[in-house]
């Protein structure tokens, strides 16, 4: 096999295949990723991907924590949209427990999840521009992301490591002035969105680098387990929010943007369109949301209010039991999936009936996409790796285990 590839090359006296180690600290490869490339001139003949290991041990740590203590670890999976990871995990445990959350909680999860998705897409689009030299677009996108993170900070109390989700609900209600703040942020986000379009979408340099590079066919994308924007850019309209609605996605109206060519430019356009769709979803949710409780009333899983803990013995015992022993989840196994920032975020959970999970496995979209990334690289130019790697939007924390 290897000989076949190099047969033509050997006849050319001027070129020899070169092996280039790209990464682990190459500016275009965020995180510890390394590509061992075999180059024929500037064309990539072969790519071997090594994703590296940050030694965080998500799964091993989770198995040694109570069910609730896993939330901070899920924050650090996809750290650009931690809320989506929080809620995805909470949903999986709730499936296993067989409990329902109040309607208001579903709305809050939808709203905050979409706010997080905005942050994810803005970061990816902006950083993509930056890596191709478009500093201005990056600064605008980061301004948008900061505004979004301000909103998240107001609600959760943290900007990055939010730990906002809870089994059976969320940590706290939305702030009373959330809708007003959102209106201000939204106005600016739409301006930024329009500016980014003006800066990038018709930009000759940007187009030349993005159009027709990093192409993948729908069949190959499906076979390699691609989900999210990377799959939709090839024309397959698979979105967990539409196909298997959870939270409030069946109560709101939104479109699933799809591409036609499966190239970098389509992935960029899909992300830009999804920003608008997320704004639409949040607007509709804020119009529909009704006052009510945000946590389930199941005493097995939800901590009692502090007033009750201080004043009644039952609530104090309940509080201690949940903190010391953890939530008791019935034995069983479940695969639960939601739409993360990069694609399908699945949790495969096994419980043996105690306060600690027996196993938590996360189907991280970034990790699976790195398994097929050589398909996007091979046959293209070395320089195309930079926009391709960006539109794949690999997040190191998610790729790691």
């Amino acid at each position, binding site marked *: 096999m290897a000989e076949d590839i*190099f047969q033509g090359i*050997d006849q050319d*006296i001027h070129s*020899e*295949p*070169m*092996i280039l*180690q790209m990464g682990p600290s190459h500016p275009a490869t965020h995180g510890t990723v390394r590509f*061992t490339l075999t180059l024929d001139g500037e064309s990539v003949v072969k790519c071997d991907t*090594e*994703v*590296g*290991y940050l030694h965080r*041990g998500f*799964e*091993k*740590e989770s198995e*040694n924590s109570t069910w609730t203590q896993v939330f901070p670890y899920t924050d650090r999976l996809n750290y650009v949209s931690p809320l989506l990871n929080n809620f995805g995990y909470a949903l999986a445990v709730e*499936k*296993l427990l*067989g409990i329902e959350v109040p309607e208001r909680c579903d709305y809050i999860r939808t709203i905050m999840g979409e706010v997080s998705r905005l942050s994810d897409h803005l970061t990816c689009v902006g950083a993509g521009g930056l890596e191709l030299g478009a500093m201005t677009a990056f600064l605008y996108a980061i301004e948008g992301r900061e505004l979004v993170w301000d909103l998240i900070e107001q609600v959760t109390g943290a900007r990055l490591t939010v730990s906002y989700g809870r089994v059976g609900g969320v940590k706290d209600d939305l702030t009373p002035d959330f809708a007003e703040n959102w209106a201000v942020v939204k106005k600016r986000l739409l301006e930024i969105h329009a500016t980014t379009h003006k800066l990038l979408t018709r930009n000759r340099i940007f187009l030349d680098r993005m159009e027709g590079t990093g192409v993948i066919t729908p069949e*190959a994308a*499906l*076979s*390699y*387990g691609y989900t999210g924007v990377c799959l939709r850019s090839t024309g*397959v309209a*698979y979105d967990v929010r539409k*196909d*298997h609605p959870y939270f409030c996605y069946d109560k709101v109206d939104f479109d699933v943007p799809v591409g036609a060519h499966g190239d970098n430019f389509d992935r960029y356009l899909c992300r830009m369109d999804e920003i608008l769709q997320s704004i639409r979803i949040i607007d509709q949710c804020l119009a529909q949301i009704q006052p009510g409780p945000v946590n389930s009333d199941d005493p097995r899983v939800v901590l009692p209010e502090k007033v009750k803990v201080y004043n009644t013995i039952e609530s104090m015992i309940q509080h201690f039991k949940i903190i010391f022993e953890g939530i008791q989840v019935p034995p*069983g*196994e*479940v*695969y639960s*999936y939601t739409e993360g920032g990069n694609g*399908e975020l*699945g949790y*495969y959970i*096994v419980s043996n009936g105690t306060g600690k999970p*027996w*196993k938590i*496995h996360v*189907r991280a979209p970034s*990790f*699976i996409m*790195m*398994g*097929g990334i050589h*398909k996007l690289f091979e046959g293209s130019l070395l320089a195309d790796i930079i926009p391709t790697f960006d539109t794949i939007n690999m997040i190191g924390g998610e790729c*790691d*285990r």
Partner: protein
Amino acid sequence: MAKKLIDLVKKKFGDALLQSHSRLGNDTVVVSKDSLADVIEFLRDDEASKMNFLRDITAVDYLNRRPRFDVVYVLYSMELKHMLVVRAPLEESDVSLPTIAHLYGCAAWLEREVFDMYGVKFVGHPDLRRVLLYEEFEGHPLRKDYATQASQPRIELLSRERDSVEEFRKYVKDEDINTGSRAD
């Protein structure tokens, strides 16, 4: 929809199907490891199932159960929108399974992760090596008997790096690269 898939497998692979259940919205079939690749290939190609998308492969270490491990495959059909979990139990004495890398593009990558973390060997895998940890790492960290606090010494030179130097030399026409006298 749920029972239909289980019945389909039951009809086709009566003996190989060890167990099946339908809980919490997940349908599961437990099959013997020898027929695993056939079951998955059948599910992928059959008109009634059309499982063209492999969502995930992972393993569970039950430690005190016999057989000790379960390897879990989550299959999905993009067209028919249904999901099936296929599990294959493995004895501790023989942690090997037939590979399904020829059926799905991502299978080879996911199997490497299971091999890395649990030490499950996939027979017929084109390139079975660790994916997250380094080659010299001893043991498989997600096994339940691997201590959480275990540490391993630093290593000197990755054999993978040595390999790539060798590979480079193989393609350079003149063997004697160090002398600087390259006769083209």
